[in-house]
């Protein structure tokens, strides 16, 4: 029912966006009021990011209204050096990258396999696997917190270990759903023909199916990326060693423990925040265009 709609919307959305651009003229035209509303919304959403950046460059925090505008006399890159002195930004970024990369690798590799199997292969138990995929979306993470901690940290001894960080997120089920949706849209006759010609399933997958669903891979990577890159609670629980902590965790530790003793705590916090936010924001803005123009229909027909 309701919950299984999420991935479908995520996958269907790009194609729909394009249709929508064509049909937009038919609908009631946008009034001035609505446009002001949209602009106001954009301001409310973007201003904190602008303020984050300005704040990260201030020598001393200026919280007056004038402080929202860049003041050449109060600008410095010093905060970035300060935060880097307390928490090693590069180590943090590398750890975040390994954590996120591991999850993306697991999701793309195993997600494509199961997504393809669910969409284009007939085998006993397929219904069970699909049922699993739907149920997983409803598993509440808060219930898993304690048992996973007991298992991974205490029983397997995987604290301060990349595998321990990655394991609970290893295969993103929403991405699996996206893969299945895209593979389903390919004509099954294509695969039947290849099988008659004697191609092995792996070869069919690698040479026929995957090249046709490249947009799905981009979608799945974007979808998967935001999870581990921004995740705080789990890596916070499993990493005590600062050299193993993803940036989100080391920055959070800085905010809650160290910041109070710094000369310009907010400058340093905001500098760290900019470094943590930049990759996700950049990635999303960069792929935004592809995200919209992705149209599975054309790649199947072509």
């Amino acid at each position, binding site marked *: 029912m309701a919950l299984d709609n999420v991935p479908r919307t995520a996958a269907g959305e790009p194609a729909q966006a394009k249709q929508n651009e064509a049909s937009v003229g038919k609908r009631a035209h946008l009034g001035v009021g609505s446009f002001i509303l949209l602009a106001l919304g954009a301001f409310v959403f973007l201003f904190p990011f602008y303020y984050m950046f300005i704040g990260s460059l201030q020598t001393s925090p200026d919280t007056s209204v004038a402080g929202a505008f860049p003041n050449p006399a109060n600008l410095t890159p010093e905060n970035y050096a300060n935060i880097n002195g307390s928490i090693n930004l590069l180590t943090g970024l590398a750890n975040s990258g390994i954590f996120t990369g591991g999850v993306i690798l697991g999701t793309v590799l195993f997600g494509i396999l199961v997504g393809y199997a669910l969409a284009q292969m007939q085998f006993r138990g397929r219904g069970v696997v699909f049922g699993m995929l739907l149920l997983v979306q409803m598993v509440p993470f808060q219930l898993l917190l304690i048992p996973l901690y007991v298992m991974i940290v205490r029983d397997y001894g995987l604290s301060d270990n990349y595998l321990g960080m990655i394991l609970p997120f290893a295969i993103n089920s929403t991405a699996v759903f996206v893969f299945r949706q895209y593979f389903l849209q390919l004509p099954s006759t294509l695969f039947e023909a290849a099988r008659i010609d004697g191609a092995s399933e792996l070869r069919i997958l690698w040479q026929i199916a995957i090249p046709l669903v490249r947009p799905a891979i981009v979608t799945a990577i974007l979808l998967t990326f935001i999870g581990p890159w921004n995740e705080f609670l789990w890596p916070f629980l499993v990493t005590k060693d600062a050299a193993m902590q993803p940036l989100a965790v080391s920055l959070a530790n800085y905010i809650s423990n160290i910041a109070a003793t710094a000369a310009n705590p907010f400058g340093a916090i905001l500098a760290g925040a900019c470094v943590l936010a930049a990759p996700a*924001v950049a990635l999303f803005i960069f792929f935004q265009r592809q995200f919209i123009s992705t149209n599975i229909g054309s790649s199947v027909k072509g």
Partner: protein
Amino acid sequence: MTRPGSTGAPLQVSNLEGKGPKGQRKRPALLGAQPLGLLFSAPYVLYVLGVLAFPLGYAVYISLHQFYFTAPGVQVDRPFVGLDNYVTVLSDPQVQRSFINIGIFLVINVPLTVGLSLVLANALNRVQKLRTFFRVSYYVPYVTASVAVVGVWLFLFQQNGLVNSLLGPLAPNPSWLVNSWLAMPTVALYVTWKQLGFFILLYLAALQNIPDELYESASVDGGNKWIQFWNITVPGVRSASVLVTLLATITGANLFTEPYLLTGGGGPDGASASPVFLMYQKGILQGNPDVAAALGVVLVIGVLLVTLIQKRLVGGKED
């Protein structure tokens, strides 16, 4: 029959069989036409069983026993204690307070999320200029780490922050995040802002399913924009509204990072402590995983009940 699950040559034989179920051999393949599908699904199935299904049962087991943390391989006695941990959890005033807090959070967050995301998605759906710009700017908070944006919210909402400078004499005292009446509403506002972009996208997709003819005939009949909005748009996206309500509630019940960082550990005086924050505090900091697991079970049951009621209320007659 070929050996199922084995790769290489036998596979192709089974493929040929599978191609025509009514083919040369009448015997239907025991594991289906492409038994290799089982192998393809195996990693995912193992992942789900090992990392999700087993811990789910384990959580219930832990909550029913007196459970201690041990070093790997150490055996200790963990006696069955029935519902003792649940009694401990439910009679704990801190826990009761955290459920009230999350209630306050949901009462503010959910209606605000549903209302604002629908209104903004509706406007976004009709805008022609700057469409991509608006889409991206709404989505940016959602794709950014909460830890990062918490930093700037702390800066904005501190005692002498920009928000209070703008408000001047109207600024609350004590300030937002250290005021026991305002801490939870501020957290709720923060989460609404952070998540809104995702829900706008959900609504945007749902809005595509409303046929244009409905709007055309309404405008022919003289229905103005408000009438169209209430009589076509709102009923047209009802199933999306159910989804947004449920997802916002589930996300809200998982609240941890914000009370941990924004209000410095559920402060002031537990006024913004969330159940998941208490799970962390009781389970991992204080070493009572059994109590924390029981709290997790109670929380999940609570969320389940709330979402069932919401589904009835928002879904209306259709469900």
